[in-house]
């Protein structure tokens, strides 16, 4: 039995029964992480932290490189944050430490979470453990790859437009984006503040519920976090879905979907129906506007969120070129020119443009209105159904370099995941098969706000009826 391939739930049982010590697990996982990291490039660096001695989950966990850990480097896979050490713990990090978690290290990602493949990372792309010539997805690609490769037991990522679910789908694991407000964003380096949400990437649905239990809850330091009770999510894992109403949105089954993905998702729907769910076709009419809306709102917020990286206070500071301009302007421009990668610059420019006077109404304001319409689509749909099922992404993992020079086709890989962020609803991706290249296919389920229990129950029922979650990448 390879310890690093086990789920957190299984390891917890082994520790409880005295069959294995947390130290042995830690050692096995850390060895694995270091041994194969040259092949996955999942970890950017390992933390230097004292060992925990207490807690119910003394298991290794990897964190996306945009989560603040006190006294550790936090870099968002960007050169501009070079040398920046967070002087405080993110709320989720505090929660993890209370639970006894062993924080392993920072996981690769697209620079500032701008991307769907981790190829925009300033430190090289992470690789897909199922085929290292392929991308692990993104932006939480390092998190997904590390879990799939057994480099960590479970991991946290962040999801602004699919950044947890799409890499989970590409790497054959479970990724959950909770309801906006379910988890405090305090300490998560912001990308699109009204869309960002932290969530678990795990080997199965049970672990997803366990990790969600640890990190959920109100935080007075985040005004957008919800002050509503947190249930024990593991109680939702009943396999019982008789009478559950499942909606299939016709706008999500479009031309251009990889046929094997379509087949796998359709088989999954049939299986759910066989297990007692009622399946019906539904419409989410404004879906086609979601990607455009998202790239206006997310970039607008990002352009403002990234203004603080100016070389004045922390991170990289460029040498002045003494250009005859005021020194401070030169410092800003040179620092940002050298510190940000192409995609970050592209999004900062896009966001700055849509907020500019004269364009604000046509872009930002209109996008806000469309966002409301998309939210209403879901509200109406959830009057009729409990869970909406779709593919997580139109394709399985693509090859490195395949889309990096074509931003639009890259943006479209988030076409099915973006609406959940715009609507603020919870969504999960779980494995539902493989394509002819033995690359995993992801199944997405969405539910109404704070209905994570319904989501987990449905996902668990499907998972337990299928073998996909037991498959491991051979690396």
């Amino acid at each position, binding site marked *: 039995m390879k310890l690093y391939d086990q789920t957190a739930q299984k390891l917890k049982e082994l520790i409880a029964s005295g069959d294995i010590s947390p130290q042995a697990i830690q050692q096995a996982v850390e060895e694995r992480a270091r041994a194969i990291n040259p092949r996955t490039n999942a970890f950017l660096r390992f933390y230097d932290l004292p060992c925990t001695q207490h807690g119910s989950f003394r298991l290794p966990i990897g964190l996306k490189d*945009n*989560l*603040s850990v006190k006294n550790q480097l*936090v870099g*968002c896979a960007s050169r501009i*944050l070079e040398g*920046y050490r*967070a*002087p*405080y713990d*993110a709320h989720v990090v505090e929660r993890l430490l209370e639970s006894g978690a062993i924080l392993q290290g920072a996981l690769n990602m697209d620079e500032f979470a701008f991307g769907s493949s981790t190829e925009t990372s300033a430190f090289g792309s992470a690789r897909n453990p199922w085929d290292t010539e392929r991308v692990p997805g993104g932006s939480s690609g390092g998190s997904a790859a590390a879990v799939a490769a057994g480099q960590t037991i479970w991991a946290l990522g962040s999801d602004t437009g699919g950044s947890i679910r799409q890499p989970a789908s590409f790497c054959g694991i479970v990724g959950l984006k909770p309801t906006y407000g379910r988890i405090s*964003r*305090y*300490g*998560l*380096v*912001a990308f*699109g*503040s*009204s869309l960002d949400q932290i969530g678990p990437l795990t080997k199965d649905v049970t672990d997803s519920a366990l990790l969600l239990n640890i990190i959920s809850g109100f935080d*007075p*330091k*985040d*005004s*957008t976090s919800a002050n509503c009770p947190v249930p024990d999510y593991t109680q939702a894992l009943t396999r019982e879905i008789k009478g559950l109403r499942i909606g299939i949105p016709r706008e999500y089954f479009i031309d251009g979907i990889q046929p094997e993905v379509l087949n796998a998702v359709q088989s999954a729907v049939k299986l759910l129906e066989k297990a007692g769910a009622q399946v019906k076709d539904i419409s989410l009419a404004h879906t086609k506007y979601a990607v455009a809306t998202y790239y206006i709102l997310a970039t*607008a*917020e990002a*352009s*403002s969120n*990234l*203004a*603080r*990286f*100016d070389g*004045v*206070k*922390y991170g990289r500071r460029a040498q002045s070129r003494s250009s005859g301009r005021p020194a*401070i302007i030169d410092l*800003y421009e040179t620092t940002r020119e050298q510190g940000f990668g192409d995609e970050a610059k592209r999004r900062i420019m896009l966001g*700055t443009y849509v*907020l*500019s*006077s004269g364009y*604000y109404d046509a872009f*930002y304001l209109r996008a806000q209105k469309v966002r409301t319409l998309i939210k209403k689509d879901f509200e109406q749909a959830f009057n009729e159904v409990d869970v909406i099922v779709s593919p997580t992404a139109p394709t399985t993992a693509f090859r490195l370099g395949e889309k990096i020079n074509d931003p639009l086709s890259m943006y479209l890989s988030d076409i099915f995941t973006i609406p959940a962020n715009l609507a603020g609803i919870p969504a999960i991706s779980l494995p539902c098969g493989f394509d002819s290249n033995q690359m995993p296919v992801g199944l997405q389920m969405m539910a109404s706000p704070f209905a994570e229990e319904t989501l987990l129950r449905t996902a668990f029922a499907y998972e337990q009826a299928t073998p996909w979650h037991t498959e491991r990448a051979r690396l």
Partner: protein
Amino acid sequence: MEFETVIGLEVHLQLNTCTKIFCSCRNLFGDQPNTNVCPVCLGLPGSLPVLNRKVLDFGIRVGLALDCEISPLVKFDRKNYFYPDLPKGYQISQFDFPIARKGHISIKSSAGDKRIGITRAHLEEDAGKLIHNDQNRSTLVDYNRTGTPLVEIVSDPDLRTAQEAYDYLTALKLVLSYLSVSECDMEKGSLRCDANVSIRPKGDSKLGTKTELKNMNSFSAVRRAIDYEAKRQEGILLSGGEIVQQTLLWDDARAVTLPMRSKENSHDYRYFPDPDLVPFVLDPAWVIAAREALPELPTQKLSRLVEHYKLNIYDATIIIQDRELADFFEACYLIYPDAKKIANWLNGPLLKELNERKCSLHDLDLLPAVLAALIEKVETAQISNLAGKEALSLYLNKNGSLEEIIRNKGFLQVSDDQQLLTVIDEVLRDNPAAVAEIKSGKTNVTGFLVGQAMKKMQGKANPKKLNELITGRLQNE
């Protein structure tokens, strides 16, 4: 051609809440640089703002005191621009839903009371402070000030002269000082004022091109800067030139306005709603409670002092300039109910002491009961008016209790007939000529005799009593 000046003022007021607007750092400037800071006010990656309730409360108070409508929606926006004192690269402010709007305040002008409109008052965070070192051409930043709560009060362009602008600031400061929401000290930067100035031919209704004046460090500097700027603009127009819309810095030493940045107008702040602070509907009960909790405002207090205590407008106006002084007045009155006498003491000797000491009433260790007792001693002629003033000064210099000072300094007046008559008889005997004059009808010479007696008593005699006794003595002869 005759021109009219049109002025609108923007006043930034630092609110004196215990903690900052979006974090729990102490709201104290002047400590060791960068000590009252945390990830939030430093704008560190991942930090998030949480609104301080007290700041909202203070904003509502300011709005109500200026007769504004209070916004039913509380919403914050980001104002984006790069500057080293702005750690996030944006300032959290209120753009389209200022906490208060459409208010007004009255000023006294040469033509009587004039109502000046308040366009809006909104809440925002202050930036850090840059400290320039010219010697090694470096700049340091103190972020203690970032996140200090500010309310920005924007007036309508209703002011027509530099003096009106000065009067507006004075009236505004008075109201604000009653609310106890700020130190309102322009020299210390807790109150800052920018002026928008334009001129137009008298009678025109269209506004001229305005310039924005910054860097005025006192109300009188605001007055000087506006006067200068109006004349500068007039000179340009009269010589056929055009006013350029720009920001100008007032140089008080050279008494000129100078351009700040050339490309000022190209600034686009890209305001948008701050996604970290979700807008919420203000509970109307909150506003009602805030209204009920408002203190009596200066104009209300003035009318009450005049009506209830029968003070004249002049005295009452001086007293209400300081809320503490007004409270002190009323406390004295409870003990010694002679309003006019108390007003005379407050507006005369007490204000003189405060001015000399350059301090405010609460810095002095003076209880209303002590002043009331002092006034009573003077009024009952136990001590002279002059001795009373000296006793007050000595008391404030901590020379002991009032009783001790009067005793030790021998301030007590002699009113004892027997003692006084002994002296008077000596004086009458030594001044036969004066006595003869009085007897022949020149009664005003009595004063001379009183003076002589006072001299003999080393100033400690009760002058009134002396006068009575001398007059009596001469009539009886």
